[in-house]
């Protein structure tokens, strides 16, 4: 088969028909056009109207800010209390953790100028899209959370853990070129059964919030988690110069490594 045919077949496999997309596009453009006409019309007001409108808008904005702050703070307290996140770190069996920590962090070797030994897409777990890992831990999602001057790119990484034996899983990560270990922080933008662990190494400011950095994270034993917490999302910072790194998972009876990164600085940007 030709390269053209191979590429077409490969992409067609992940391109289901987008039924009705034309209608949705048409509706969005028409709605946007109406919205813009309304805003132009609203702009033609007398100076008095504008003054009162401005004061009213300020008061409304202040009220919204107060409401949102109340909801966020209240929601977090409620969520943490409901899901037991407040007690998660302390609920980790420290003896089990120390045993796992005693295992050396062995990152794959990346020679200068060498190609990053990316883990292959194993397409396991009956998922559509990239799934990395041979098991029992699988990475299926990753997204940027923001960039800081101090640490670089903070990202969230989502895993499935198909546990065969009870027990926690220790997660550590590091740059394959510099051998530098990455700091972890507690992911708080949603429920997660993963906990940042180990001593506090320092703090960083991300999106206006102070976050505490730890040397590692722990995936909780799935059998001990409430269903809502069974998402395993860890959050860690990747230095700006890093292109290739690895996670090491140490759990009951297994050690697994997943290598991931960017192919070049441009695609990372």
């Amino acid at each position, binding site marked *: 088969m*030709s*390269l*053209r045919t*191979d*590429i*077409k*077949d*490969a*992409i067609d*496999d*992940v*391109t*289901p028909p*987008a039924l009705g*997309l*034309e209608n*949705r*596009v*048409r509706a*969005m*453009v*028409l709605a*946007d*056009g109406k919205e813009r006409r309304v805003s132009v019309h609203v702009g033609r007001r007398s100076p008095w109207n504008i003054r009162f409108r401005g004061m009213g808008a300020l008061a409304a904005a202040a009220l919204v800010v107060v409401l949102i702050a109340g909801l966020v703070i209240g929601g977090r307290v409620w969520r943490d209390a409901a899901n037991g996140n407040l007690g998660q770190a302390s609920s980790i069996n420290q003896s089990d953790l120390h045993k796992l920590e005693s295992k050396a962090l062995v990152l794959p070797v990346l020679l200068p100028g060498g190609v990053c030994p*990316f883990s*292959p*897409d*194993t*397409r*396991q*777990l*009956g*998922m*559509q*899209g*990239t*799934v*990395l890992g041979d*098991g029992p831990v699988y*990475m*299926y*999602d*990753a*997204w*940027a959370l923001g960039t800081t001057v101090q640490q670089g790119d903070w*990202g969230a990484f989502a895993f*499935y853990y*198909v546990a065969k034996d009870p027990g926690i899983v220790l997660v550590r990560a590091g740059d394959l070129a510099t051998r530098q270990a990455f700091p972890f922080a507690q992911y708080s933008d949603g429920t997660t059964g993963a906990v940042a662990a180990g001593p506090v190494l320092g703090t960083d400011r991300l999106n206006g919030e102070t976050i505490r950095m730890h040397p590692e994270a722990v995936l909780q034993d799935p059998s001990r988690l409430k269903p809502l917490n069974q998402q395993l999302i860890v959050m860690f910072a990747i230095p700006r110069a890093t292109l290739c790194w690895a996670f090491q998972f140490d759990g009951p009876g297994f050690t697994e490594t997943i290598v*991931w990164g960017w*192919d*070049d600085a*441009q*695609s990372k*940007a």
Partner: protein
Amino acid sequence: MATLTVRTVSSVNEQAFTDLLVPLVQPAYRLACAMLHDSGAAEDIVQDASVIAWRKVGKLNDQSKVRSWFLGIVANECRNARRRRWLTAVTIGLPSELSVLSGENRTVNGADVRHALRQLSHDDRLVVVLYFYLDMPVEEIATIARTSVGAARTRLYRAIRRLRPDMVIEEALR
């Protein structure tokens, strides 16, 4: 393809604009799918790009270039989406136990090709997708990629060498 009844695109209304855009929606969706390998994200990209295009339609001076102009917006949105989203897989029901997807050869080959495409940088992948998947000429690819024809050709050759190191370029281009 629909044509605008006005002399300049800048004075076009929503209806005429969407008539012009609708034939480009499926190519745009295929481009976004090829770049992101995520059909849900691709649909979002096409819708967002359509609104961006509508808001910028005044900058389109030559109606005959609407395809490359619009696909350029889609490509740029794909780049932005990739920056935000590093990796994603869509669950087809929560996995209760480990199951390996189809072992059919074509699927395995397809996965290999997609993996190889993902290893390319955004710019290299874009020219590959436009040339091999959407069958576009290099001149139009250069416009979409906002580069020169020579640079687009260089990217294409470089990408082919990475995808198929043993293949002669002329043979791969067929």
